[in-house]
């Protein structure tokens, strides 16, 4: 691959997706400028615990296949994901694991020295590779080390403590192309333009829109929101995953990995409400293992949205929660403590440190919390070589899978537009890419989608800058005026915020950015998580309009021109409010229930009306909810035919758990 020396790529975000992209692009000979708000080693990907999915030799001999991994992901996501990219990801997965293994990730091992495997939600096969209960951290470190190697060779330049402010876009309409970014140094506060022939957004999710979530403090969704406001489309915003098992805290909700259930953890409450005996004193027959009872096949390993709704139903509607609160037991005490330390040490320690009980001997008390955004920036792809004459059903274990695991079946390798947003040259990788998880993400598929995007779609970026529009018209050759204008626009926003510092108004809660953020988080958690209703969502949209109005006269608490964290936070609150509106409006207009999106007033999946991707376009001239134009685009279901998503539930037809009231996940305790 020959490229002009002036070609450069910017990667924004240094989590798994950003680092995988940086490594692949730098390796191909294109220098990378890597921007991150934190030293990349501290990115949110370190919080991932349970593992990473891939078909493997053992599972294959038991009848599993890449195709089945693909099918599980589509079924888990309730058919909302376009099928080509998911097939390609599943087919690629074993290659991703092998690469991580070569990089030295300390995957847990079997006695003979092979990579160990565990069960995870949405599958009856062991296809999850893991490194204790800190798999994300271990994968991050491996990619961080490889990135450091390229950095030492001068092929990756890091800009840490840099905040992405705006994509620089030239041209209009269909001919828009991203040619750089504006970023602010979080210490010197200098606002600068950086040119690039392509920009990869790898900026993760938006958990902070919900106040307390399992996300890290920088996961505001601010970067995605800014791209959206600059014209990139945002897709399926309403698809927010609420993880069933977390510990509510004063500052965040701490995740207790699905691997706890994968390793045998059982969810239960006492059969008698108000039974306040110690859990160990409650005999087996007086415990209600409600997930195992309702889903005899998958048991505790039903997908997250289902487990979440069941736990919510037990606590909120049936008032059966432990100690009459919003909590259920996640019990591992029947397992050997030494085994638990080896397989789950990381989360055992977190629980013990923050709650004070040792989960090896006392069942954990957990409740659902906002965890992941399936929605994100809308991206394109070029379909791969597979063209079915007819759709396929579920792969029957032991039979030949309908589609083999070769590269290029689902997506065309190296096509310029794979994972490219509607703006040429602006890509979205990892959680901020909406493409893979539909209406619910299966556990241990997130790490996979991040690294797959980086490696597979990284090639698309390289091909685009070397043979696409930038090869004719490199960013380096463009008039400086465009870049200067973008910098002064951003500097103007910074100055306006700095000028809002006003000691006379400092104590006014109405315009306090922290207060606005708390109210947004509480509202979004109450209305836009486990159970949604049209009535409640309408109120939310009004509340968000009120918060936006208050934000318009927000009062910053710090006028410092050096390391002003208050400025960065306050700016992100404005961007989060925009995303919150996209999420709320998408939730209101999707009058059906699908995956994580459960509408009490529309409890059935409605393929006729809503087997469609929600696409939000921002209109800078619009006010309040009118600023977001929502359209719906058909989902590609050419490979697998949609079927009812029941997970073998015994008591009823194909419908999700019943629930009465809007949720208060995460905020409860």
């Amino acid at each position, binding site marked *: 691959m020959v490229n002009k020396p002036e070609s450069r790529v910017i990667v924004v975000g240094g989590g798994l997706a950003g680092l995988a992209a940086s*490594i692949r692009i730098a*390796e191909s000979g294109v220098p990378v400028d890597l921007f991150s708000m*934190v*030293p990349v*080693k*501290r*990115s*949110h990907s*370190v*919080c991932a615990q349970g593992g990473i999915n891939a078909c493997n030799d053992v599972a294959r001999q038991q009848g599993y296949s890449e195709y089945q991994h693909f099918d599980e992901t589509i079924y888990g996501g309730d058919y909302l994901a376009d099928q080509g990219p998911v097939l390609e990801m599943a087919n690629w997965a074993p*290659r991703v694991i*092998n*690469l991580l293994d*070569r*990089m*030295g990730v*300390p995957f*847990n*091992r079997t*006695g003979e*020295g*092979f*990579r160990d495997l565990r069960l995870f939600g949405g599958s009856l096969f062991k296809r999850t590779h893991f*490194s204790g209960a*800190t798999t994300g*951290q271990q994968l991050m470190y491996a990619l961080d*080390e*490889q990135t*450091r*190697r390229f950095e*030492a060779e001068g092929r990756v330049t890091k800009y840490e403590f840099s905040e992405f402010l705006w994509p620089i876009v030239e041209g209009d309409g269909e001919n828009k192309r991203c040619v750089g970014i504006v970023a602010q140094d979080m*210490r010197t506060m200098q606002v600068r333009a950086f040119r690039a022939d392509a920009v990869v957004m790898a900026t993760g999710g938006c958990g902070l829109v919900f106040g307390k979530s399992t996300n*890290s*403090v920088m996961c505001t969704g601010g970067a995605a929101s800014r791209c959206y406001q600059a014209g990139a489309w945002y897709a399926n915003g309403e698809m927010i995953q609420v993880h069933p098992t977390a510990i*509510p*805290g*004063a*500052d*965040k909700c*701490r*995740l207790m990995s699905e691997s706890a259930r994968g390793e045998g953890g059982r969810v239960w409450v006492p059969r008698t409400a108000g039974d306040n005996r110690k859990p160990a004193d409650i005999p087996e027959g007086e415990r209600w293992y409600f997930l195992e009872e309702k889903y005899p096949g998958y048991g505790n390993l039903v997908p997250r949205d289902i487990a979440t709704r069941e736990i919510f139903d037990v606590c909120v509607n049936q008032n059966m929660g432990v100690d009459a609160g919003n909590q259920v037991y996640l019990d591992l005490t029947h397992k050997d403590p030494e085994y638990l330390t*080896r397989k789950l040490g990381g989360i055992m320690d*977190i629980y013990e*440190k*923050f709650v*004070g009980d040792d989960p090896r001997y006392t069942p954990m008390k957990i409740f659902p919390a906002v965890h992941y955004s399936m929605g994100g920036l809308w991206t394109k792809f070029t379909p791969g070589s597979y063209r079915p004459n007819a759709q396929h059903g579920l792969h029957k274990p032991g039979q030949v899978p309908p589609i083999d695991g070769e590269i290029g079946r689902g997506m065309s390798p190296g096509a310029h537009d794979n994972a490219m947003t509607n703006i040429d040259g602006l890509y979205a990788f990892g959680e901020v890419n909406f493409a893979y998880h539909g209406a619910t993400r299966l556990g241990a598929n997130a790490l996979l989608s991040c690294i797959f995007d980086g*490696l597979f779609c990284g090639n698309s970026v390289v091909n685009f800058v070397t043979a696409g529009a930038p090869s004719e018209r490199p960013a380096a050759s463009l008039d400086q005026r465009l870049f200067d204008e973008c910098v002064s626009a951003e500097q103007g926003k910074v100055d306006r915020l700095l000028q809002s510092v006003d000691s006379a108004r*400092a*104590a006014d809660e109405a315009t306090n950015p*922290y*207060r606005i953020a708390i109210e947004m988080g509480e509202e979004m958690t109450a209305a836009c998580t486990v159970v949604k209703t049209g009535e409640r969502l309408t109120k939310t949209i009004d509340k968000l309009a009120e918060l936006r109005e208050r934000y318009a006269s927000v009062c910053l*608490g*710090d006028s*410092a021109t*050096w*390391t002003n*964290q*208050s400025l960065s*936070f306050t700016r992100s609150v404005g961007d989060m409010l925009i995303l919150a509106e996209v999420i709320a409006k998408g939730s209101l207009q999707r009058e059906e229930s699908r995956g994580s999106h459960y509408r009490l007033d529309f409890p059935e999946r409605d393929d006729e009306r809503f087997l469609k991707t929600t696409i939000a376009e921002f209109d800078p001239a619009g006010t309040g909810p009118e600023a977001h134009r929502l359209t719906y685009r058909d989902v590609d279901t050419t490979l697998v035919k949609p079927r009812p998503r029941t997970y073998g539930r015994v008591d009823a037809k194909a419908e999700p758990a019943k629930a009465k009231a809007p949720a208060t996940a995460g905020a409860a*305790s």
Partner: protein
Amino acid sequence: MSAVHVPSETERIANRKKAKPGRTVRFRIKRCAGHGKPASWEDFDVVTEPGMNVISALQRIAANPVTSEGSRTTPVVWDSGCLEEVCGACTMVINGRVRQSCSCLVDEYAPEAGDVITLEPMSKFPVVRDLWVDRQRLFHSLKRAKAWVPIDGTYAAGSGPKESPDRQGTRYALSECMSCGCCLEACPQFTIEDDDAKWDESFIGAHAISQARLFNLHDTGKRLESDRLEALASKGGVSDCGNAQNCVKVCPKHIPLTESIAAMGRAVTIHRVKKFFTSKK
């Protein structure tokens, strides 16, 4: 008001039991506008909530930065990320001892109304502002130690080497290092150095020595073993360790740092002897 100290594990458990929510606790915070600028202390009173940690107290202060004397001040600046002790960002000196602030529970440190918790930035790194320090040097040390596996490239080339569960267990324990810098803050041999030109010759630190061991334990990582040992044999390497053993006591991940230092010390000696006899290089 009890004197500021670091509670033992037994005290922490007892404190947690007796602490009542809704009491007012005082945070005494060292403020500083930047490296080389004068520092001063400010007190803030915070009403506790169940499960409150130092981070959530700092969040309350940021939302309404009014000191105990009632004067409005600027929000305190601090570094944080995951808030569950896996990213290393929120490391600071609390009651005189370095640790992560996310896992520091207010009930454990200040069980009575009026109890004081002191927060200071780490002293071995330049202050950016208030509690936020610049730990770039720590990552630079990982370059010195060539802390990576030299793979051929990212294209498919089969799986990595097989590994025994024991070896994996050893490597995993070392690989949990989150580059927080606790071991450096506690080390008498590691001193602040803001001239980055001198980083290559100043003490590399326990974390990087342990990472060198981690990668020497990997079948492919081993290919760079002699480079790593060369780095550890030179100025600022493993022989600068004064054996105070503070590092291992403050490591939040219980990484066997002194074991790593001893192992690397022996490996460097063998490396030197070999080099002498083979006069390679």
